[in-house]
């Protein structure tokens, strides 16, 4: 995926207002199957995989023993004993090795098979409010009623749809905060699907989108990116992802330290912030200061950019919990100067109707 096709801002706004098409084939795909798959997955992942019915997916994390994040990923239950893991490209080897090691080390819960689909399978994502108007048509040949089926899907649901002579897993999910779908299938058919989507979406404002827009879109939503908000020395609790850690499900890797953090608190928290006025965009690595202090910074920016939707600098970063409450003023150091920013709730950007209901400015001037 290139950084951009027509321009980051144009692509970003296409996703917010119409639709965007992303080639996300860099994501790793692992198939885990066998009688022992569920027990195994529930021992290595933080979320409770038992909650998944066939055709459902969940966001979940892979942690090491001290509770640090090995990767964050999506887990889909395809059939009774078959699961699809969608993992970060940069973490694929680490994940694969970690899962293999745990599989061999764990007391045998029954057969567990790991299959790497990444070489033979790719993925596309279509994201944005107009996607539902044209996506069904791309899969509907010879199968009437398909568009209705997509429309009826709930968030994180996954279904299998025929495309030409192949089959794609289509999940209602994404990394942009908009309605959308991710489609996983054989690389041999990706180009054809890409072209068909572009043609079908043209009348609905669909634009091809690159990594740049993918990053600004997820940052506006406050979604973490591995290597920025998450690493092996950062826990899901610190990252604000406690919702995806099922401490009550029984033993899993990292549970003890995560439970302890949940009970006694963390020393730093990931917050979202919005620059108070015109400023250079905050960037990863910039120091975060407590307002009015000059001795040492309280944290670092982990993600930052100019928000195309808000026209202002936004970012994510870690600060001590006493400074993590929305409304707290912070200062971001940019080339030696301090610029004011305020801690805001996630997501940083809300659709205009939602924003009005929550008393949040939809667009900064």
């Amino acid at each position, binding site marked *: 995926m290139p950084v*951009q096709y027509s321009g980051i801002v144009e692509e970003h706004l296409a996703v917010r207002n119409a639709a965007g098409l992303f080639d996300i084939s860099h994501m790793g795909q692992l198939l885990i199957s066998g009688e022992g798959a569920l027990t195994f997955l529930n021992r290595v992942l933080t979320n409770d995989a038992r909650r998944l019915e066939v055709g459902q997916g969940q966001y979940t994390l892979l942690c090491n023993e001290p509770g640090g994040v090995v990767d964050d990923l999506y887990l889909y239950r395809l059939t009774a004993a078959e699961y699809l893991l969608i993992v970060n490209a940069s973490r694929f080897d680490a994940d694969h090795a970690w899962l293999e090691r745990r599989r061999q080390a764990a007391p045998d819960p029954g057969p567990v098979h790991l299959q790497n689909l990444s070489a033979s399978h790719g993925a596309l994502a279509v994201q944005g409010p107009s996607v539902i108007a044209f996506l069904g048509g791309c899969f509907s040949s010879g199968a009437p009623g398909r568009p209705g089926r997509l429309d009826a899907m709930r968030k994180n649901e996954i279904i299998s749809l025929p495309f030409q002579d192949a089959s794609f897993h289509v999940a209602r999910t994404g990394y942009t905060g908009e309605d959308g779908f991710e489609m996983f299938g054989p690389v041999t058919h990706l180009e054809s699907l890409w072209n068909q989507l572009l043609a079908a979406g043209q009348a609905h404002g669909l634009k091809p989108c690159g990594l740049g827009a993918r990053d600004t879109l997820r940052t506006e939503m406050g979604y973490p990116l591995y290597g920025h908000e998450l690493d092996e020395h950062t826990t899901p609790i610190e990252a604000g992802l406690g919702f995806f850690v099922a401490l009550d499900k029984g033993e899993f890797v990292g549970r003890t330290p995560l439970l302890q953090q949940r009970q006694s608190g963390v020393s730093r928290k990931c917050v979202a912030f919005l620059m108070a006025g015109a*400023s*250079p965009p905050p960037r990863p690595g910039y120091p975060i200061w407590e307002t009015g202090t000059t001795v040492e910074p309280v944290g670092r920016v982990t993600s930052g*950019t100019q928000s*195309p939707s808000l026209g202002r600098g936004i970012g994510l970063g870690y600060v001590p919990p006493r400074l993590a409450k929305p409304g707290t003023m912070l200062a971001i150091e940019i*080339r030696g100067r301090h610029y004011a920013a305020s801690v805001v709730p996630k997501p940083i950007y809300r659709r205009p109707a939602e924003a009005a209901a929550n008393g949040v400015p939809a667009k900064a001037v």
Partner: protein
Amino acid sequence: MSQILPELKYAKSHEWVRCQDGVALVGITDHAQHELTDVVFVELPTAGRVLKAGEACAVVESVKTASDIYAPVSGQVTEVNALLSDNPGLVNSDPYGAGWFFKVSLTDPAELTRLMDDAGYRAQVGG
């Protein structure tokens, strides 16, 4: 294909210079603004600052990244483009006009001969 004006001088680092009566008007090229994409913030030198040719003296921020801008000639900054603080997009929409960066009173007019003409710059950017 990006626009390259015949009456300007160009630096390797993609700044242009328009010189008149010992004062150089400085901006960045159409090619540069295109590569940088949507400019969202421009940090300019303060008026009065003395610049040495080749010195980093301004920063252009696009959505994706921050890029240094280098002084193409030596001299004192006499004026900066105040419009850019409210409307940084001028760098994209009018790079050779309303999107200019700053004016410098030249220390050494001979430095201009070290810059490229339009043909030289076109050869550099492959336009």
